[in-house]
Structures are given as structure tokens and as C-alpha cells.
């Protein structure tokens, strides 16, 4: 661990990182635009310049060198002495900030980035209140560069992060800088729009309001948004994300740094995969079959009813005829609570891993970012719980077959998929179960056979943890209140088990870890210093 001295204070830093990264991690606020830890270094924004002690050419004494060095390009070396708190550095920073606004349109009132814009932040902290630029501004055009992204190149600071991202991480290289000097702008090649599967990241990467998401455009001022740490519910990779929401509505999803999984990026599938949460077709009323017709059921009456049905089904044979399908969309805690409940009434009940949607092969990008083919977040978590619970278990295919053979008297089927997940044949087979309890987000082919149909909550309305395909258990928090008429799954299972009070993910995890120690070991990514993005 090299030790360096910054502004007279000694700090310890990780090996091989640039000085800029080290001082940001140690809590300094050093302005920068082009540097991003996930991309190559170009040292072109000239904002992170620092002074460094060097041996004097004649006397060989260590002294402040009479020039500035880009801290993003200088690797840390033990014993190095640098400073940012000096008149020279401040003067250079203030000039560069003035240059950035020479051709900038200053249209913050209509800019989506306002409020989280590093041109605003740095101008306030390192720049000036007024400009000396009284000439005609050069105005680069606004462009539509892809189905999801807009480019307002008049706001661009030409940090070239998006270009490097396209080349190095996405491997698509669609974006390029064209023209020279202050006319330089980002553009795509004619007829080749920005359409790679990671394109949403360029919007996060942009330190200013040049690259904008069409989906988020003019939707919300960012200072009204609240961010909740969460985990990607669309694939088994377990990318960590922020859910930005306001008034119980999601407005956007951003990546949350995770050194073991997704680093700084997420795929567009994750980024735009939350739309179903606000779908008007979502179920919002528990129903019970009464003489062939579905009648509303009060949530308060549901636990008692389920207990009675389960006891009846399991009274004769310890519950051999009972099955519980644990969807990979459930969190570990929910799956554990539900299986505990079912096994407490029917010890020989079959636990089934729910349907796992898979589409195509895994996709790996040049720097190792992966889009996983498995489109459910918690297959591995559910499987480990079933394994730890012991007793009879089955795959989803086996369950459908046995159900079709009339083996089951009662089945509790959880869904929660954003897409259609059952074929009519599968539904018909499952429909042979005499008492069928479904718990799902949307109407499905099972509805006509269901005895009880419970509305589920989406992942953003629940809390718990997902175990990703590599076995990392990552907790996520609740961002939204459940839809009117919906109870969060965890709370409902909590009541089924008969635990007192409110369901909390962390509390449940503790109780679960007592039974299954592996679940005590959760992974929380290391906090990342504030980078300009």
C-alpha cells in the first residue's frame, strides 16, 4: 500500500491507481470530466491538474515542479508529494471552468441534467459567477442518435467518455468525435445509429446534459427524485442498481457500482426493465372461487383460509399431495417464509423451483460485462433454500407432469414474471390440481383453474435479497408502496407463518441464517467515491 502526501496530509492508497482515484477515495473533491475508473485515461479535460514535488534539475533537491501534472494520468508512487490546494492549481481550474462555458448554451432551466450536472457543480465550486465571453457562441446541433438516446451537442464538453465506452466496454464503437477545435462534436456514422445493448450507460457517463435518455426526457427534475439501492430483477447476473422514484412512481433506473458484478454499468434490459411495475393490467384484488365465480377476498381473511385449506389437504398423508412452486422472482426471504409455512402444515409437501425464463446464450462484452441469458434474479437462491429445507422437491417440468397425472390435491403457485410464462397446455395440466392457489402479477392461463388468486407485488415494492448466478447474496430495499389493494409478498408470507409485527428483510434474513447459515453471508458493494457521473 503506497503512502502519498496530499496537501500536507498523508494518505494510504491502493496499488496502481492514479493519484486522482486515490484522492477521491480519500475524500478530496477534485474536479474532473474525462477520467472514469472504468475507461482508459485520455487526460484531455485538464481539470484534475495538480502540483507535484520533483527533484530540481540543478540542485537535485525535492521542490514543487514549475508545471502542472494531470492527476488522472500519474500513478501513485510511495513517498510522492502532491498538492491541489495551491494558488496555481486553483487558477488553472478557474480558467478551465470559464472555458467550458464559452460555448455552452446555459440552458439549465430546460436541461434534464440540471441538479446533478457537474458543469453546474464545478462552476459553482471552482468557476465564476459571470462570464467574460461576449461574442457569438458557436452552437453545435441537437441530434437524434438512436432509438433511446438524444445528443444535445451544444452542451457537450468533449470529454469523450461516451466514445471510449462504446469502444472499450460495449465494443460497438458507434460514437465518434467529428470536426476540430470548438466545432468538435460527438456523432454517429451515417446510417449507423447508437443501438448497442449497453447504450443507456452513455447517458449516466455524460457529466453534463449532452446525452439524454428519451425515456427520461422532461419527466422529472432530478432533485425531486429519491434513490433506493436495489438489485436488477431482470436477469440472474445480479447487477446492483439505484431506483430513482418519486411519489411511488419509478422514473429511471441507474447502475450502482459493484466491483464483483456489473462495475459501473447495466444493460438496457435492466435499465428499462421496470416498466411493468406501472402497468395498468396488474392484479390488485385477492379473489376466491365461490360456486364457480371469482369473488373478492379480504386480505385479512386470506391467512386463515390458506391454513385451513392446507390442513385439509395434508391431514391424511402428511401433505404428500401438496406442492409449493417457488418462483425465481421471489426473494430468498420470501421463498424461505413461504416454504417454511407450507412445510409447517404439510411436512411432506413438494417444493418446486419455479419456471426459469431463458433467452439465448449469455453475452459477454469486451471488458467482461455480461448479460446473462437467465431472465430471473433468484433461481439459485430458491434452489439453495429448497436444498436446505430437504424433503421432496421437483423441477417445474416434473411438477407440471405430476400435476397433469393428478398427483396433487393442493398447489401454491407463485409467479411474478413481467411476461407471459405459461403455455395453455401447462396451465391445463396444473389445472388438474383440486385446490390451486396462484400468486402473480398479471392475469395468466391459470386463472380459470385457480381457487384463490392473490395479487403479487413487484420487486420495487418488496425488500429482501437475491442470490445471483455466482452465489452472491445481495440485499435490495423497497422503493415504492405496493399498488392499492396489493400486499407485499414478504408481508403476506410473514403473516402466514404467524410472525408478529411487520416484515423486514434484514430481520428475516437473520432468522433464516440461524437455520441456513449460508444466508448470513451477504454481499454489499464497496462504496464508490463520487466521480463526475
Amino acid at each position, binding site marked *: 500500500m503506497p503512502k502519498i502526501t496530499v496537501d500536507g496530509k498523508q494518505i494510504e492508497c491502493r496499488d496502481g491507481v492514479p493519484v486522482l482515484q486515490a484522492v477521491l477515495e480519500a475524500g478530496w473533491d477534485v474536479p474532473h470530466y474525462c477520467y472514469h475508473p472504468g475507461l482508459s485515461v485520455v487526460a484531455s479535460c485538464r481539470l484534475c491538474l495538480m502540483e507535484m514535488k520533483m527533484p530540481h534539475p540543478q540542485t537535485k533537491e525535492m521542490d514543487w515542479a514549475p*508545471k502542472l501534472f494531470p492527476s488522472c494520468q500519474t500513478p501513485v508512487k510511495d513517498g510522492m508529494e502532491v498538492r491541489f490546494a495551491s494558488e496555481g492549481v486553483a*487558477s488553472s481550474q478557474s480558467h478551465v471552468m*470559464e472555458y467550458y462555458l464559452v460555448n455552452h448554451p446555459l440552458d439549465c432551466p430546460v436541461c434534464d441534467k440540471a441538479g446533478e450536472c457537474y458543469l453546474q457543480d464545478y462552476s459553482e465550486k471552482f468557476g465564476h459567477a459571470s462570464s467574460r465571453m461576449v*461574442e457569438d457562441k458557436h452552437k453545435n446541433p441537437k441530434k437524434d442518435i438512436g432509438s433511446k438516446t438524444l445528443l444535445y451537442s451544444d452542451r457537450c464538453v468533449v470529454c469523450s467518455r461516451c466514445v471510449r465506452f462504446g469502444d472499450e466496454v460495449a465494443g460497438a464503437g458507434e460514437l465518434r468525435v467529428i470536426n*476540430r477545435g470548438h466545432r468538435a462534436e460527438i456523432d454517429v456514422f451515417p446510417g449507423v445509429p447508437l443501438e448497442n445493448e449497453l447504450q443507456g450507460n452513455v447517458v449516466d457517463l455524460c457529466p453534463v446534459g449532452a446525452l439524454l435518455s428519451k425515456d427520461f426526457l422532461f419527466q422529472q427534475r432530478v432533485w425531486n427524485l429519491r434513490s433506493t439501492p436495489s438489485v436488477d430483477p431482470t436477469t440472474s447476473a445480479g447487477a446492483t442498481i439505484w431506483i430513482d422514484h418519486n411519489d411511488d412512481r419509478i422514473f429511471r433506473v441507474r447502475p450502482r457500482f459493484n466491483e464483483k458484478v456489473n462495475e459501473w454499468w447495466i444493460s438496457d434490459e435492466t435499465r428499462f426493465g421496470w416498466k411493468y411495475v406501472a402497468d395498468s393490467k396488474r392484479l390488485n384484488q385477492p379473489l376466491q372461487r365461490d360456486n364457480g365465480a371469482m369473488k373478492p377476498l379480504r386480505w385479512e381473511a386470506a391467512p386463515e383460509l390458506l391454513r385451513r385449506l392446507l390442513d385439509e389437504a395434508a391431514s391424511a398423508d402428511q401433505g404428500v399431495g401438496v406442492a409449493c412452486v417457488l418462483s425465481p422472482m421471489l426473494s430468498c426471504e420470501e421463498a424461505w417464509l413461504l416454504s417454511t409455512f407450507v412445510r409447517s402444515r404439510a411436512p411432506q409437501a413438494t417444493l418446486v423451483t419455479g419456471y426459469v425464463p431463458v433467452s439465448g446464450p449469455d453475452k459477454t462484452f469486451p471488458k467482461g460485462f455480461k448479460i446473462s441469458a437467465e431472465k430471473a434474479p433468484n433461481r439459485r437462491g430458491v434452489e439453495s433454500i429448497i436444498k436446505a429445507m430437504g424433503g421432496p422437491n421437483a423441477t417445474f417440468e416434473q411438477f407440471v407432469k405430476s400435476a397433469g397425472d393428478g398427483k396433487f390435491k393442493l398447489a401454491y403457485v407463485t409467479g411474478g414474471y413481467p411476461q407471459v410464462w405459461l403455455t395453455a397446455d401447462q396451465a391445463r395440466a396444473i389445472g388438474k390440481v383440486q385446490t390451486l392457489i396462484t400468486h402473480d402479477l398479471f392475469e395468466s392461463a391459470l386463472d380459470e383453474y385457480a381457487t384463490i388468486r392473490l395479487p403479487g407485488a413487484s420487486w420495487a415494492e418488496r425488500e429482501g435479497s437475491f442470490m445471483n448466478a455466482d452465489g452472491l447474496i445481495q440485499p435490495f430495499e423497497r422503493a415504492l408502496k405496493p399498488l392499492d389493494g396489493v400486499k407485499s409478498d414478504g408481508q403476506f408470507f410473514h403473516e402466514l407463518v404467524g410472525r408478529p409485527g411487520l416484515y423486514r428483510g434484514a430481520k428475516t434474513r437473520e432468522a433464516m441464517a440461524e437455520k441456513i447459515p449460508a444466508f448470513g453471508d451477504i454481499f454489499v458493494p464497496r462504496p464508490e467515491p463520487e466521480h463526475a457521473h
Partner: protein
Amino acid sequence: MAYEQILMRNCREGGDPSIKQYKAAGGYQALDKALAMKPDELVEFVKGANLRGRGGAGFPAGVKWSFLPPNRTVTYLCVNADESEPPTFCNRVLMEHDPHMLLEGIIIAGYATRTTVAYIYMRGEFTEQFHVLQKAIDEAYADGLLGKNIRGSGYDMECYIHRGAGAYVCGEETGLIESLEGKRGWPRIKPPFPAVEGLFHKPTVVNNVETLACVPHILTRGLDWWNGLGTQNSKGTKMYCVSGPVNRPGCYEAPLGITTRELIYGKDFGGGMRDNMKVKTVAPGGISMGFLRGDMFPKPDGGKVDVTRDCDELDCLLDFDDPRHYGLLGLGTAAAVVVAEDTDIRDVLFNVTRFFSHESCGQCTQCREGTGWMHRVAARIRDGAGRQYDLDLLAEITKNMGMMPGLSICGLPDGAAFPIRTLVQKFRPEFEKRIGEQQADAAKRRILQTNPAAYDLPILQGRAVQPAGGTYMTPEKLKRN
């Protein structure tokens, strides 16, 4: 007095650029001499000649070659023929009239650096020169001077011409390398220097055309001859260009260290000013090096250099050191642009800023935005709507860009800053006089015309504090640099 023409011996109208002519003039004898030596001996030999790079920075070529890592398998030699400095055309003249001199230099330098492939990066606008040089390369291949086993020495080297697409910044060595790799010509951050990791991530030497053309002559005529020419730290012969309202604009050869006055008035050189005009200003090293005051100013007292006084500065020696005493960046390409007394200094400023604003590559912020800003300020001053404050502003912007204070990746912003700074410093009285002659509120009207909202700009109303001036590059720091 007339100097011996060495580099330019074949440069005349109707001269024959063929290999036959070159061999008849004693060409390719240096190559035999070189091939008899060991490569490292050759590097030491050129080091001994203190052959300083003719491309502008004046870095010794032999020292550059010795930076190559010792155990390398592939080495590239890039010949910088992207001659884009505004009034410079010496490389063009050389390649047009004596391409084999350059080729011999390339082969010798290639042998010394154990180069496997040499690329000649040629300015895109050179069309005729390209055909001449390509023909010379074909002749050299046919004669066994390039390709496998050159002259039976067992040394192999290939040589190709790559034509640029017209960017000034591609004359910067790493910009050239990027462009040669097929990318946008954005200079690279250093370190690593090209000698360690250059073209295609392999050790690379980048040399100017004229530098390489000097190498055969040093070998044939010897170090004593070479070191007998020039001044203390600037040895050898050099091609000078002179353009502007002189009687004989053109390219001339002389040992390093002639005066600017000689270049303009010497009968073998510029031959004096047209219509006996006086010189207002001259940029003796290509415009990016900065401007000298001409002889319309009085002679200095006692011949002492004092750039703060309005004195005739034409006694500046054209070698690698003396221009610095006059506030210039260096010798540059030794291509003098002469501006006569009847030219408005505002037009000179406008033209200079326009060039750098157009050619800034757009990578570093100070240069990208600064050059464009200065151009627009200069345009406003030229249009008769300047302010006294603009002169301070220009001086301040030029002090806050450039590689010397570590504010940019390449040297282009230094080259943009020096001419503008020297113009504003040395011709401030004239600028002030011109601004004084304007209509009283011309500047304000012009500003409101471009931006009606500027009416409320606190800065125009005198309500806000101007952003603090100043610069990182204080005089003491400049001195240490």
C-alpha cells in the same frame, strides 16, 4: 556572401529528381559508409554531430534514437513530412527536387535504429511531391536500396508513403502516429514516449524530412565540417523560407545563425522589401513561434535586447537559442513571414487566430475553447469594435494554455499562444491607437447586436467583479522551464 548549397544543391527549375542525377552528384556514398559501421556506432556518430531536429522543437536526433529500448524486435521510423506550419515549404522543396537525399537519410537512420518499416507521413495537399517521391522509392527498390538485404548488408527495410488528410495537428509526432494507425489525429498523452511505445505499440522514431536529409552529408563530409557551421548550440546548415512582400520570396539555404535582417534584406535571400517599404513585423520561425518587431521601429540603444521597449528586433539570430531572448518560442521551422508597414496589425492578429482556431484538435479544453474565443475577439477588434480590455483578455488567455505549464497534451496551444501574446505585447500601442479611433460605443453596440441579452450581463453594467485574471505560468516558473 553566398553560402554553399548542400541540401538544396539540386533545387532549381528543371532540376532532375532521378536516382541517376543523385548518384552522379555523389549520392548513396554515405549509405555505403553507414552500412560499414555498426548501428550503435552510427547513433553515437549522429549524437556527436548534435543534429537538432529541424521540425521545430530542436531535439537532438541522435539522442532521440538512443532512447529506443535495447532489446526490441520491431522498430518503426516515421518521417514527418506533414509540413503544415503556415509559411513553411522547405520540406516540400526538398522532396520535390531531391527525393533521394531524403531516402538516403531514411535508409541510414533506419539502419542506425534497426528500423523494419519506414513510413513517410506526407501532407495530404502535396500531390505532385507525392508522385515524385513515390517514383524515387520505386527507383530505390529497383536499385536494391530498399527491401530485402540492402546493398548486400543483410539489413532489410520497407518504406511506404502515407498521405495525410490535411490536419496541422498531425505534424505533432503522436498525432501523426495516431493518424498513421488510421485513427483521429489526436495527440497522445506522454509518457509512454513514442521511442518506447509508438506506432502500433512498438518503439518508434519520428524525424523531420530535413533532419534526415542532413544525415548523409554529415557522414560524407564529416563531423568537423558540420560542427564548423552554425552557432554554439546550433550546428549545421538549414533551409530557410521567406514569404511576404519581399523582392525574392522563396526557400534558401544557409548555416544556422544568420540574422533575420539578412534573411529579409540579403541579396541571396529575400532581397529587400518591395517598394522599399519598412518591415512592421516578422514571424521568423513560422507563425507559431511568435513575432518580432520590424525595422519601422528605431534601433535599440547599444544593441541590448529588451523586448519591453519598442525597438527594431531584426538582429535576432536564426538559431535554436537566440529567438528565445526575444520572447519567441524557438526557431521553429525557420520560415519567416514578413509583414510590411502598410498592413493593419489587427488583420495580422485575425489571420493568426483564425488558423489556430481552425486547427486546434479539440482534445484539451484550454486549446479547444481558448483558440476559438481568441479568434472571435480578434474578429471583433478587426471589425472596429474592440475594447482595451480585450487586449488584456487575449494576453491572459494565451498565458493559460500550452504544454510548457503542463496545461495541455501537445505543443499546439504553445504555438497558438506565442504569436498572439507577442503581437498583443509588442504592438499594444498600435492596437490601442486603432481602438481609440473607433466610434465611442462601437464595442457595446456590437456586443448587443450579437447577443441582446448581453444588455443585462452584469459584466457590461460594471456590476459584477471580473473573473480574477492571473495565470499559473508566473515569470519565475517560466524561467525554470
